[in-house]
């Protein structure tokens, strides 16, 4: 990174203020504030009438930042007096911020501070995977991490309870038992993934479906004879069919029968089949013995269902994992790496070597001698209590895995620093990077660079390397699903059609779309109007796309087991993330669409301008416009709602956006009518602009791409920093949006700029504690 970029991100950019300019917020203040906050009434000891110039605003910055907050949150002016529109509120805030921005040009950006962060469940699982090199999800039984600011990795909300601490202790015990195995040799050296056996799909399939007795065949090239384990994970696609029986064949010979029923626990059945295999090409196949659908005729033996969507077509097995692991050797790689030590040294010296290395890896930075000594002492005490070498090491490892320096990310190096922004240490930078992009600990390369002090210098190259690593899928899944608020889809009830296959297809579409924008470095405006999407057979049927299109069915045959990229007609209703079934479903009520929820979703997640919360004690509607009859269309009912003044200002902003999507039903399927009523998706915005439906909305939103860029930037900063944003972060967001616009809104530019930003690489010095 060159010096100019550093200057750009660390100092507030822009044109300096000219002297003696007037207070640009004065019209708003005169209209809404001075009836209470003038020099005579001075309500709450606040007099806003005395600020005539820009300088005067800058001189009372705290006061005006509080004013912005109150006005934006709808707390001021009080409900008893005339209310500004949401746009007036925005403009008020923007004008004052503009004054501060000008006054701050050239000053250093306050990077803020990130509180101590506990690893959340995902981060814990991934960190254990990378630290101990085991395939195990120990956090499965941890209580869920409650989100804040829309994300589950927010420092402040990641509290620790005694219950969780108990689970940490249990998990540490289980992890060590799997990592240091002294009695039996079971651990993988080679893992053959799922991809090996599906060569038909284009987009890294994460599961396949089997519907008929036609076997699934895959070939493994084994380098050695030995004991292998086949790990199979799957479930029947529907509970209407009897448990599925599968034959497992090696080189055409049946070796095992597998049974998959709807499991009592969790979503899937996990099976482990031990196999003795010889080296060379081995053909492993899986065949269903009791298919519901006939292989030849493709007809199902299940009764036809009139209510659902040809459900019988989906009676089969859904397979998530088909991993051949082996040959088992002893000790496993994780164990070998953790226990590596000088064979000639005394056992106490060996313990010291082993623990010093593990503590530093677990703490993601070089551990001090005092820190290491604690665990060596525990090892020694355990030996004295009669534990064998490996067992005593295991006890020390358990302690390290429940230690605060492992469970939390501390960044203590501002302790002795002077005032002003201080760069965080190279090791902390490595952790910030890896938990942002991988939801896991830094790898050897990052730690090496940090140890050499070269990480900040090579930031861009490292980011590129990290994004190319498959571990960055964690960023795609965690950030995308939380930004789009489509997590928890498997826990909402949307009726029969919304079964596990449908839910997964919907989630997958959005994840794959996000993945494509990221990997191909597309402009972020694709999220608003990208004329392509990713579907499997189920979703294509749902949408009426490809060979399922009503009008002009294409000859593209969409497979059941994989997702394909389809381009969408440019004039059609679908395009961008907004018309994904996932989003449209999660912004519906269980029994109907909700234009208000959809409108709010757009304001929250696309335009970053959520209206203030509704006033307390909203009076019932009949007081607003006579008794509401049950039979009135939703739109009419909401228009009545809007006729109430205190609701009007915000709902005029919310509702039209949602109504533009009314032709998508509560599961995101296109429709012309709501029941028997025709749907009117002609929309007029408060500013008089008119458009129609999803296609029109796309155009409107693309025009607001800077607002969207700001929104996505804010969301990504929150996710990257693990904290909410405040006024100090406005210059950072401004600068990123500016760079993004100059660079064609490329997605990877956004990621890079977030990482380059002052809040990501710096922290507030100890000498300065704002607020």
């Amino acid at each position: 990174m060159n010096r100019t970029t550093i200057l750009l991100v660390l100092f507030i950019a822009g044109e300096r203020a000219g002297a003696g300019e007037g207070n640009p917020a004065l019209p708003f203040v005169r209209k809404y504030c001075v009836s209470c906050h003038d020099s005579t009434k001075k309500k709450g000891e606040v007099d806003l009438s005395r600020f005539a110039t820009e300088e005067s605003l800058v001189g009372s910055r705290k006061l005006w930042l509080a004013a912005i907050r109150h006005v934006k949150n709808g707390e001021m002016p009080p409900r008893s007096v005339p209310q500004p529109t949401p746009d007036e509120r925005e403009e008020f805030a923007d004008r004052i911020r503009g004054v501060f921005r000008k006054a701050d040009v050239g000053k250093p950006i306050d990077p803020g501070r990130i509180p101590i962060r506990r690893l959340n469940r995902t981060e814990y699982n991934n960190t254990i995977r990378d630290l101990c090199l085991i395939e195990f999800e120990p956090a499965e039984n941890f209580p869920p991490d409650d989100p804040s600011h829309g994300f589950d990795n927010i420092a402040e909300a990641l509290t620790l309870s005694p219950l969780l601490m108990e689970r940490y202790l249990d998990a540490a015990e289980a992890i060590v038992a799997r990592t240091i195995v002294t009695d039996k040799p079971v651990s993988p050296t080679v893992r053959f993934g799922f991809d090996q056996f599906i060569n038909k799909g284009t987009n890294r399939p994460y599961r396949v479906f089997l519907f008929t007795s036609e076997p699934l065949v895959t070939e493994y090239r084994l380098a050695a004879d030995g004991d292998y384990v086949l790990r199979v994970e799957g479930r029947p696609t529907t509970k209407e069919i009897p448990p599925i029986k599968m034959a497992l064949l090696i080189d055409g010979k049946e070796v095992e029968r597998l049974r998959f029923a709807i499991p009592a626990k969790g979503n899937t059945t996990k099976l482990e089949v031990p196999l003795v295999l010889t080296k060379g090409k081995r053909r492993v196949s899986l065949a269903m013995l009791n298919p519901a659908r006939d292989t030849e005729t493709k007809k199902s033996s299940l009764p036809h269902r009139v209510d659902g969507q040809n459900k019988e077509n989906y009676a089969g097995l859904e397979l998530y994992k088909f991993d051949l692991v082996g040959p088992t050797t002893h000790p496993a790689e994780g164990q070998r790496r953790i226990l590596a030590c000088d064979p000639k040294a005394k056992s106490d010296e060996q313990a010291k070597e082993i623990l010093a290395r593990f503590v530093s890896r677990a703490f993601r930075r070089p551990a001090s001698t005092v820190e290491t000594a604690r665990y060596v002492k525990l090892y020694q005490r355990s030996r004295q209590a009669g534990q064998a070498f490996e067992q005593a090491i295991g006890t020390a490892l358990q302690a390290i895995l429940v230690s605060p320096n492992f469970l939390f990310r501390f960044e203590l190096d501002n302790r002795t620093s002077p005032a002003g922004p201080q760069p965080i240490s190279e090791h902390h930078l490595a952790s910030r990077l890896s938990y942002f992009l991988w939801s896991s600990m830094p790898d050897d390369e990052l730690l090496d660079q940090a140890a050499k002090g070269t990480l900040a210098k090579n930031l861009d190259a490292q980011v590129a390397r990290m994004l190319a690593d498959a571990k960055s899928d964690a960023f795609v899944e965690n950030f995308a699903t939380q930004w789009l608020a489509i997590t928890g889809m498997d826990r909402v009830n949307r009726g029969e059609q919304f079964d596990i296959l449908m839910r997964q297809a919907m989630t997958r579409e959005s994840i794959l779309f996000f993945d494509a924008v990221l990997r191909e470095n597309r402009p972020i405006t694709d999220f608003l109007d990208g004329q392509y999407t990713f579907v499997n057979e189920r979703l294509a049927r749902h949408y009426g796309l490809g060979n399922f299109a009503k009008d002009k069915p294409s000859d593209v045959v969409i497979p059941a087991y994989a997702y394909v990229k389809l381009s969408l007609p440019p004039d059609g209703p679908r395009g961008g993330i907004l018309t994904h079934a996932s989003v449209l479903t999660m912004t519906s009520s269980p029994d109907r669409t909700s234009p208000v929820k959809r409108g709010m979703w757009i304001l929250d997640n696309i335009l970053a301008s959520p209206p203030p919360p509704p006033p307390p004690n909203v009076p019932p509607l009949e007081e607003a416009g006579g008794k509401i009859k049950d039979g009135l269309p939703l739109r009419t009912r909401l228009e009545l709602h809007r006729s109430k003044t205190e609701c009007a200002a915000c709902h005029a902003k919310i509702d039209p956006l949602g109504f533009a999507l009314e032709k998508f039903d509560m599961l995101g399927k296109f429709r012309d009518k709501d029941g028997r009523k025709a749907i009117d998706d002609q929309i007029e915005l408060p500013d008089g602009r008119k458009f129609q439906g999803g296609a029109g909305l796309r155009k409107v939103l693309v025009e607001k791409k800077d607002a969207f860029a700001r929104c996505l930037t804010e969301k990504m900063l929150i996710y990257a920093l693990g904290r909410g944003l405040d006024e100090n972060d406005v210059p950072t967001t401004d600068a990123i949006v500016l760079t993004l616009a100059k660079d064609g809104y490329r997605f990877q530019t956004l990621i890079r700029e977030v990482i380059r930003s002052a809040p990501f690489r710096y922290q507030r010095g100890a000498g300065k504690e704002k607020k």
Partner: protein
Amino acid sequence: MNTIHNRPLSRRTALRGLGATIALPWLEAMAPRSLASGSTVRHPVRMAFLYVPNGVQMSQWTPRAEGERFELPPTLAPLANLRHDINVLSGLAALQGRPFSDGGNHAPAMGAFLTGVHPQKILRCGISADQLAASRIGHLTRLPSLEMSCNRSGRPTCDGYPCVVSSTMSWRSPTQPIPAEGSPRAIFDRLFASQANDRERNATRRSILDTVRDEASALHNQVSTEDRHRVDEYLTSIRDIEQRIARVEALPAPRLPAGAARPEERIPASLADYARLLGDLMALAFQTDVTRICSFVIDSEGSNRSYPEIGINSAHHDLSHHNNRDDMVRSILRIEHHHVTQLAYILQRLKDIREGEGTLLDNCMIAYGCALGDGNRHDHFDLPIILAGKGGGSIRTGRHIRYPQNTPLTNLWLAMLDRAGAATPRLGDSTGLLNGLS
């Protein structure tokens, strides 16, 4: 309550050398025979707080008559067989749950329910009644308190607050919410299985905890004041676990009654089955005296759960803003009735368990209700509250008691704490003990 004087000496010897003074729980089986058959035996008082969201239709909830001759309105009809075991309390309020200047009705309501403190968006609230009780009498049992929820998987309505504010009622301190557990199996294990007394394992755990406490104490001096509370959480969690290990070693293993089995890990699909299962676990925990304090979120505040089990596919919160539309009111009334049906089941479970001369329910105080009154208007006063059980004989049941408008709900919590041997002068916005219960 003071049972320690009646304790056989042999039990005390087991405590020697623990380095911790631990009072012992009351288990009927351990009592001297003369006492067990006598009428002077006092069983421990248990307390539970059950939460249902989104307010209720008060017109179908509040009995018209006061005192003993009250009729059961339609929503309370499922409690017909239990009417002599309950009190319906009207007029209570949780005014700290109002939106104030920071907006949102649901999250702050839930936050204020057991604390009497208005929660802040920076994750601050107050200590909750159950945790206050646990800090006073929790050491008497193997588990100080139990926190459960039937809604640990969906995203709660967060109203711009950290979502934990609307997913739990329990706050151990103003900065430490206690997340509720939702897995029936994990709850059972916490109560019984993980209580296994493995001395070697306990010794290993102790030395591990010693080591990491050392590290945490060192960190405590290094972190900034803002971060110190997180390190404190860590340290208190460690201390909690050490105390639990000590209690597990000192106390006899709980004896599971015949028929009590470890539940499946599967989470029941219908709320009815789920609430009953967790209710069974609560009854089991009380019966075996593994804990005496329980907070139980039947559903999170603002929840949009639908109830296909009773044919309602609309969302609960959506329905609560019915604006008096007949069809919506009819639906939400059925949900409210459905909730009370589950309460009736749980109370009947407690009543079916004999304890001394009476029933387990007689020795319980089960509070059930919501921090919103009329959900359509988001009222934070005139709350629907039921207090079931006789609190070990300290509560006269079978009445509808109307309190003056806006009597703080926290006064009820104080009165319950008082009866459980965890008396405390203040809780949040309390103004004194709620009178009229005895």
